[in-house]
């Protein structure tokens, strides 16, 4: 007879058998048995965060930078509710995560017990799936199912709620090698007929455009995408979530698209006659006004999630399947096809795109006496040779990082795209650094965002995580200020961050290195010095021009051809 283990031991063994390297968590009453089981082993390493939101973002950063699922352990009640923001963040960006939440004793469920909350109910709308384990005999299988669901199909977070008595009760331990669910069978192979139809359209295009998203990164299909795009010689744009899936320094790359995308990317989206969407979801920040979106194009959409197809934009050829498989098949078909892209038409199209490119839409004032945030990021990219892991928070700094850091590899750009979670950057960077101990990990943030999870500086100290924090400090919630300037006649309602801390002293008090940079000429030396401090976290507080805005910009609800460039060259 196999050895009987407690639920807590089963849980930890299951994580080990699942190959889990790190779990991010915070102890509490309902999970004390689990923490005791963790204490007695060394295979699964636990990272103690300072707030459960930090645990979920750290696990998320770990997952985004490795492709492996992030794992979180929190207690019942407030532990679970604090984790919700991070769970929703992962859900919106389809990040594989397994979150184990403690729960009160099964006999106390529903009695408004101390630290009781309906975790399954609270997380239901922001998880791919969730479970409440009522019997210790089901625990190992449920953990297996959770990992299986989280990592297959369109990935996402899965919550497993485990009552305290379940972690104390005993059962035989056997970890299933595989699970099959009759109700869950994601489609990964694209429909042959649809793929053929799509290839026909792709090869007939005169003004083709490839628009790829986070699905390419999640589906490990960057190589296939690069081969496919180079084979055709077509222009390609990436969404915010898809940056790095195609090398940004390649000449076929026309930059990011959407609200703060490049002029050339958005104009090409508007004017193309064939639009191929690969693993993106026609998000509202990309599409703008649906009625005005890419009006003259035949549209093809490859997505692993059928519900993403025709949700907002109707397409001519939908293909459900994993982007890697579908691109692989398309490459084979294109290589075998007699028909080839129309070279003359393509040359004309590129000429048009190069004219749009010549507007140099990301240009900014290089002679300013104030530090321009764009200059900091351009320099960061240059000094790290475009090969650092860059996490960001949410707002202007996020858009500038996306515009000015040229990502040539997937999984280097880590940001909260869908939910737009301020506070994401620092804890996410912790997860990235743990997964890549020798890599340079930069957290690009602003003085408003960083305050939302600032407590994690303490976690960084405990585990010696040498992050490079680039705080673009403009004394405003910059994106809010920008919208108030544009759309509320400059009534800056509650967007000024008054009573800011002295970030240098703050970093030092946590045991880190702090720097304050106030002059454009000091930017490069400061970055160089910080990057040299390989084993220290450096908090760089860049005092930037508070009036700087993110351009180009398409206002919400407008079409791609209605872009605004920066005021110096502003037309409309």
């Amino acid at each position, binding site marked *: 007879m196999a050895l009987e283990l407690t639920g807590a031991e089963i849980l930890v063994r299951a994580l080990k058998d699942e190959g889990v390297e790190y779990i991010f968590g915070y102890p509490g009453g309902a999970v004390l048995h689990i923490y005791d089981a963790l204490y007695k082993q060394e295979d699964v390493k636990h990272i103690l965060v300072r707030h459960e939101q930090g645990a979920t973002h750290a696990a998320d950063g770990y997952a985004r930078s490795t492709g492996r699922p992030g794992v979180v352990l929190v207690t019942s009640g407030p532990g679970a509710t604090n984790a919700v923001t991070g769970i929703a963040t992962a859900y919106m960006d389809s990040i594989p995560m397994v979150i184990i939440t403690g729960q009160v004793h099964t006999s106390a469920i529903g009695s408004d017990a101390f630290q009781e909350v309906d975790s*399954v*109910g609270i997380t*239901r*709308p922001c998880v*791919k*799936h969730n479970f*409440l384990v009522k019997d210790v005999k089901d625990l190992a299988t449920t953990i297996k199912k959770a990992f299986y*669901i989280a990592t297959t199909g369109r990935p996402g977070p899965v919550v497993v709620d485990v009552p305290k008595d379940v972690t104390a009760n005993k059962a035989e331990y056997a970890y299933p090698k595989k699970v099959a*669910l*009759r*109700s*869950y069978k994601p489609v990964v192979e694209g429909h042959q007929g649809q793929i053929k139809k799509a290839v026909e359209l792709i090869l007939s295009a005169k003004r083709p455009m490839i628009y790829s998203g986070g699905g390419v990164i999640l589906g490990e299909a960057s190589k296939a995408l690069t081969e496919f795009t180079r084979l055709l010689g077509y222009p390609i744009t990436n969404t915010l979530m898809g940056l790095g899936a195609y090398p940004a320094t390649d000449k076929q790359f026309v930059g990011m698209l959407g609200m703060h995308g490049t002029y050339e990317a958005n104009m090409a989206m508007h004017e193309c006659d064939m639009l191929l969407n690969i693993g993106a979801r026609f998000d509202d920040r990309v599409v703008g006004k649906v009625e005005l979106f890419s009006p003259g194009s035949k549209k093809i959409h490859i997505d692993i*999630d*059928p*519900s993403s*197809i*025709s*949700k907002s934009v109707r397409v001519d050829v939908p293909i459900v399947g994993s982007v890697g498989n579908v691109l692989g098949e398309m490459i084979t078909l294109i290589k075998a096809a007699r028909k080839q892209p129309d070279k003359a038409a393509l040359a004309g199209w590129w000429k048009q795109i190069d004219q749009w490119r010549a507007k140099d839409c990301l240009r900014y004032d290089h002679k300013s006496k104030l530090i321009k945030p764009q200059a900091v990021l351009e320099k960061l990219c240059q000094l790290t040779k475009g090969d650092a892991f860059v996490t960001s928070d949410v707002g202007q700094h996020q858009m500038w990082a996306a515009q000015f850091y040229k990502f040539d590899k997937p999984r280097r750009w880590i940001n909260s795209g869908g939910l737009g979670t301020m506070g994401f950057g620092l804890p996410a960077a912790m997860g990235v650094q743990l997964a890549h101990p020798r890599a340079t990990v930069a957290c690009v943030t602003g003085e408003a965002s960083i305050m939302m999870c600032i407590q994690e500086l303490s976690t960084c100290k405990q585990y010696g995580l040498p992050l490079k924090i680039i705080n673009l400090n403009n004394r405003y919630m910059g994106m809010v200020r920008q919208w108030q300037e544009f759309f509320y006649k400059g009534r800056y309602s509650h967007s000024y961050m008054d009573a800011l801390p002295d970030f240098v002293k703050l970093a030092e008090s946590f045991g880190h290195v702090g720097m304050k940079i106030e002059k454009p000429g000091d930017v490069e030396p400061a970055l160089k010095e910080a990057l040299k401090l390989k084993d220290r976290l450096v908090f760089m507080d860049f005092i930037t021009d508070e009036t700087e805005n993110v351009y180009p910009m398409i206002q919400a609800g407008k079409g791609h051809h209605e872009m605004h460039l920066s005021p110096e060259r502003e037309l409309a």
Partner: protein
Amino acid sequence: MKNMSHIISILMENESGALSRVAGLFSARGYNIESLTVAPTEDPSLSRMTLVTSGTDNIIEQITKQLNKLVDVVKLLDLTEGPHIEREMMLIKVKATGEAREEIKRLADIFRGHIIDVTGSSYVIELTGPGEKIDGFIQALDGKAIMEVVRSGVSGIARGAKSLKV
């Protein structure tokens, strides 16, 4: 595009919380539920749900896709897409005194209802049929006589030999 009523038949895992996943999906995405019935099938591990909703073709397409995406949903079918049968059951309590007693009994007979509870002043009538028939019976009754209406919501099944099974 016109809003059309659709009857969606869903085979799902008989797990606690499965119903709330469906109900939650509808409220979170702003879809209508006109009626919903659910009960276990001959296989106790599966439940069969019949859901009546309405929307444009695009909305119905999203509803079926989103429902299919729920991990607990095994299979589903939009019954409205083919020939099907729908039935609803109603229990209605009416005042039955004096001359009205005979009149209500006759009306129930016309609609093939059954009187299943009788007191000196009331009847409970059981009536089964498509929604319009039930609406019709309610219309035919004197509104003041109606004491209580309990409708089961629509249950439906496709015509022909094909079936929605695992």
